[in-house]
């Protein structure tokens, strides 16, 4: 660590100070949002807003959770949770299987399939939104969880991660399994899967956040307010026309919207970092 080189007390304190400033800048918007969600609308309408928390926390959060604007926030949180879990688990499951097939088998069209899957890395969903909307509508899957989840499961980042990982698994293990007469699926379930646990967990963190934070796709395909997810639903709370914005409730909703992914990141920090670094290789 380059810190070993200069170790005067003043320099170290300066660095700590600088980092604290950095953190303060990064956290300031959240702090303000928290304050705003704890005071009354009247205190916010005439700036400057108070800089210390108020006493309306319970009141505002209850209002947000149970009335919201088009749909109560608890419903939106639920929809987001289902969507995020569906995307994370769905992606992980199909990728585990595909990567296993690609790495451990030689079969016709293997190369073709590999490249087909590889190409999905090239196009995020934003580029194909209109026709994807029509495909989903054609299946009658608008306003459904499967419609929310499936188009976002289609890309290959997880497949590549597992492929990379399987490549590093020693050949001896597979050989031993074959010698023992174990079927490929036994090998997969008893040996490969347990070894992949850390990778699966790391990927879960990344994919959960990716799924939870989806915005454009849910915006387009949920026409029924009951299916709104929370990240896309916040914008609907903004007034259109001459209504006044209910800022405390909007801020409370924003904080609720970021809570689950932030918790996941903070509690599973090390896995998160590993997942980030690995998926970008």
């Amino acid at each position, binding site marked *: 660590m380059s810190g070993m080189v200069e170790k005067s007390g003043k320099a170290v304190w300066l660095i700590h100070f600088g980092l604290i400033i950095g953190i303060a800048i990064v956290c300031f918007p959240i702090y*303000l949002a928290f304050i705003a969600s704890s005071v009354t609308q009247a205190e916010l309408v005439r700036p400057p807003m108070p800089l210390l928390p108020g006493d309306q926390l319970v009141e505002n959060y209850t209002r947000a959770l149970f009335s919201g604007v088009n749909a109560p926030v608890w419903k939106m949180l639920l929809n987001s949770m289902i969507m995020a879990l569906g995307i994370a688990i769905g992606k992980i499951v199909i990728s585990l299987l595909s990567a296993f097939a690609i790495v451990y088998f030689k079969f016709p069209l293997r190369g073709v399939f590999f490249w087909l899957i590889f190409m999905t890395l090239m196009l995020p969903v934003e580029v*194909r939104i209109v026709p994807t909307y029509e495909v989903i509508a054609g299946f009658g899957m608008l306003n459904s969880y499967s419609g929310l989840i499936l188009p976002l499961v289609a890309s290959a980042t997880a497949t590549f991660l597992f492929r990379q990982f*399987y490549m590093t698994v020693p050949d001896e293990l597979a050989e031993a399994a074959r010698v023992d007469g174990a079927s490929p699926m036994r090998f997969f379930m008893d040996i490969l899967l347990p070894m992949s646990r850390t990778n699966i967990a790391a990927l879960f963190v990344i994919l959960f956040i990716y799924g939870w934070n989806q915005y454009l796709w849910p915006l387009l395909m949920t026409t029924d307010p009951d299916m709104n997810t929370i990240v896309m639903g916040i914008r609907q709370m903004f007034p259109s026309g001459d209504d006044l914005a209910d800022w405390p409730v909007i801020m409370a909703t924003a904080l609720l919207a970021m809570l689950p992914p932030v918790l996941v990141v903070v509690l599973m920090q090390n896995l998160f970092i590993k997942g980030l670094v690995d998926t970008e290789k």
Partner: protein
Amino acid sequence: MEKRVTFRGWKLPLILILPQVLVTAVFFFWPAGQAIYQSAFIPDPFGLKSQFVGFGNFEYLFSDPYYLASFKTTAIFSILVTVVSMSVALWLALMADRIIKGSGTYRTFLIWPYAVAPAVAGVLWLFMFNPSVGIVAWSLDQIGYDWNHKLNGGQATWLVVLASSWGRISYNFLFFLAGLQAVPRSVIEAAAIDGAHFWRRFWTIVFPLLSPTTFFLLVVNIVYAFFETFGVIHTITSGGPQQSTTILVYKVFADGFVGQDLGSSAAQSVVLLVVVGLLTVIQFKFIERRVHY
């Protein structure tokens, strides 16, 4: 890259790979193909009839000054977001790298903004800069600077840049920190003994060794700015004022779903497809090569 030991049989692998191939075919290739096909038509909004126009939609696009402006807007926006978020992240990483005690705590505090959706970040920053109630807008007014991003395009651009960069700082910070921590201590110490002070050491040793990470982050941040910032723009400015924050992906949405001009939207999707394809090729060909040595 091949495994030396593989299992026999072809039925099982085909079954295993089927779910992913199905999902990819139905939700990726089919819509992508549709986008290309539809770009040659002008449909009416209700989907009842459509006129074949061949390249007409593309001609319309490239003769539309607002579409061309959108390229410029996207480029400026991406560069600003990348520069802002990477510089702040680098500064923080340099500091975090120099301390031993407590770096874990600092890291915790700095990485969680990654989990905040761009759209939510947009809401937070909009609240701070709202011309009527925002505390930052009010403070700027107090010192005589009139803030109204609903009318002023430059201010709107800065606001979305700030909101988009804010969440990205964590991501870049982590990679920079990892990169810095991989710099061999011995090299630094040798330079220090030779009398080089911090900035000298940084520019001649650390920065070159950090360059693979930097290049990698450059590409990733640009792709992020292209696509994932849709939520920020939709929440704060809706592409305005006067389309000054309408980036390419926002225009695809605005023309297709708000303007009901599906032909133009499809043509724009095709253009984006080509642009992203190029970016991905660049990323894999040039960046990957530099990272793995």
